[in-house]
């Protein structure tokens, strides 16, 4: 009996590699590395496999939860020329880092033309490197200003007409309420700093395409000072709450949902999360009725805000054995119907404006029009191959928020990041 089992095991071990070879003769199986979601990307993969009618199959592999770990895994695999990566869901700030060394397969012109049609500008900007579209815009995210109608009313503010940071800080302070902002030492802090600097008319990196030792930072400027003033004030006067130095997007949502919630800048997932809380009975029904939304707050009264941009674009691996099929599949994935489905079911906004006309989307997101407008106004984070250094360097110097000083922080962070990029300092 034992001998027979042993023979069977050896036979299986010898035949298994042959089975793998035989897989190559059928339609190619494309592996799509996805970021974790509520199963939407797996469903789209299934739909596109059906639509391909035997031309290819798409299987999905899930990447780690946070964007930085996703980047680490993809960059290391691509540096080792991993041919199993056909399609990958990429966080926009990391696209240049993968495009610069040629880790992304060049996009055929006709594909670039097809996937740019009706797509919001923010998504196109974020998927472009050195004037070439290098990734296919999939979904596009942006932060809105979420407000408690009761608080705004008492302060005499109409956020839908546009408000400044100063106005919401004063309103929260006067009513002894808390602001929902992300002060944790994490990517969300970079998102905040970038939105403030861009809204004040500046840029964190002035020449994003430069090499590491020539990168010029724009933090030590009036825009950098304006950003530091806002963050420092919220950190010091307590309007961010005691949890501010460790507050990420989820933590600020919890603050906003609480009794002392007032205004919050956050991604649209908070809407579906709050509704889910009400349905589960953990949050009161009145809360949803008291929540309003508007475009991100301005830094200067006369200047439109540049809200944060996020989302996912699809890259095709340069070492994939099926580049053409992968681009074909990517076009299917970002189809308007799939984007509308993804937005309505998984809560991630579409990059294609046509998807916003879908009745499913309109029902799930009453603020769909504001999201679309915000995406048009949004500014991506610095598009540089050294984004990780810039972002981590910012987090080192702008954290905790209470320590941010407009006279010193922008200058110090500028010098520190420059030294890191030149290889003269550790991060």
């Amino acid at each position, binding site marked *: 009996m034992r001998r027979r089992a042993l023979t069977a095991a050896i036979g299986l071990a010898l035949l298994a590699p042959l089975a793998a070879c035989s897989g190559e003769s059928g339609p190619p199986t494309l592996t799509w590395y996805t970021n974790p979601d509520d199963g939407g990307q797996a469903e789209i993969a299934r739909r596109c496999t059906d639509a391909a009618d035997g031309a290819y199959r798409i299987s999905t592999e899930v990447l780690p939860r946070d964007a930085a770990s996703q980047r680490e895994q993809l960059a290391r695999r691509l540096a080792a020329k991993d041919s199993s990566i056909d399609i990958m869901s990429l966080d926009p700030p990391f696209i240049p880092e993968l495009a610069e060394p040629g880790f992304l397969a060049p996009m055929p012109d006709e594909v670039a033309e097809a996937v740019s049609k009706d797509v919001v500008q923010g998504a196109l900007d974020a998927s472009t490197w050195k004037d070439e579209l290098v990734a296919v815009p999939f979904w596009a995210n942006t932060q809105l200003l979420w407000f408690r109608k009761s608080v705004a009313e008492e302060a005499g503010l109409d956020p839908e007409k546009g408000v400044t940071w100063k106005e919401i800080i004063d309103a929260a302070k006067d009513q002894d309420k808390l602001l929902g902002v992300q002060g944790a030492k994490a990517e969300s802090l970079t998102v905040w700093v970038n939105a403030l600097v861009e809204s004040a008319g500046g840029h964190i990196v002035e020449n994003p395409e430069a090499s590491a030792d020539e990168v010029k930072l724009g933090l030590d400027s009036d825009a950098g000072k304006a950003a530091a003033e806002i963050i420092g004030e919220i950190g010091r006067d307590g309007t961010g709450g005691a949890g501010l*130095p460790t507050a990420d997007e989820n933590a600020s949502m919890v603050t906003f949902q609480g009794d002392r919630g007032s205004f919050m800048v956050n991604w649209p997932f908070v809407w579906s999360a709050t509704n889910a809380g009400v349905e589960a009975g953990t949050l009161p029904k009145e809360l949803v009725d008291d929540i309003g939304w508007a475009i991100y707050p301005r830094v200067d009264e006369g200047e439109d805000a540049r809200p944060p941009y996020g989302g996912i674009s699809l890259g095709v691996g340069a070492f994939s054995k099926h580049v053409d099929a992968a681009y074909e599949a990517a076009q299917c994935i970002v189809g308007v119907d799939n984007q509308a489905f993804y937005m309505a079911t998984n809560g991630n906004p579409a990059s294609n404006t046509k998807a916003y006309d879908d009745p499913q989307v309109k029902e799930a997101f009453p603020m769909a029009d504001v999201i679309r407008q915000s995406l048009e106004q949004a500014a991506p984070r610095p598009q540089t191959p050294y984004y990780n250094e810039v972002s981590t360097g910012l987090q080192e110097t702008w954290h905790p928020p209470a320590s941010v000083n407009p006279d010193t922080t922008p200058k110090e962070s500028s010098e520190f990041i420059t030294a890191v990029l030149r290889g003269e300092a550790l991060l």
Partner: protein
Amino acid sequence: MSADVETRAPGTKEPGRAGKAVRSDRAKAEARLGWWLAGPAFVVMLAVTLYPILQALYDSLFQYRLTAPDDQKFVGLGNYQTVLTDRVFWGALLVTLLITVVTVVIELVLGFALALVMHRAIKSLRGILRTAILVPYGIITVVSAFAWFYMFDIQSGFVNHWFDWVPGISPDLNWFAQQGTSLFVICASEIWKTTPFISLLLLAGLAQVPTELEEAAEVDGATWWQRFARVIVPNMKAAIMVAVLFRALDAFRIFDNVFIMTNGANGTTVLSLLAYRTSIGRLEIGLGSAISVLLFLCVILICFIAIKLFKVDLASARGEG
């Protein structure tokens, strides 16, 4: 083994050497068999430890970024110069040393107490007691780090509410917003998790203390403390030193707790995290390898100090001395 016994002259103090001079065929065959049995494991160990160490040494001499493979440049000891002249490195080293000293000292005291309890417990309780004490050690470090993080977290944690009667603790205390409080939670989690390990090693040492000595001291009228300080501790010095050495090496390489709880925020960056952030986060293989090599040298230094200066005898702790 048996050959040694046969060739040993009565009273010979160094059986190993005496045996070497006239090794029988059987002894040689046994030695050969030993090599055949241990050889593959030894080769695997070389492949998975020595090779990466040599590779890291080599990489540390280059300016090499994983996403710019063509720009690799030989810089000699340049990376070491950058690391050793940077305050971030020295800050991380200091924090690592602080965590190592604090946790090892506290663990030694608590571990001793637990070992005594396990040693003296009545037979019927012994099994359950040992299991209970060992539970934290069986938990994966990342899991325990998350558990401690959520316990102290300002939003989800219960510590602030349970202990708000303690001066300094209030619902508004954000443990992970300052260096002192962050390090307190990191150390507490580390101590909770690894004290059982040290207590196990000490329990093995306690078992080696001859009961006759203790009984003799008791008959001579020694107090409990005298028996402990004069009889028990001196007789298990080797076990204590081995426990301290093992834990110190382990604590010096602390990573998980810091990574999960603060990710190095508020001056809590430790050496392992710095090496990780440079090699894996920034993909700067050259600079990161230099930090890893320095971390390795620090570990060797700790071993050297323990073995040469404090004369830790690893063999005697196993009862071979």
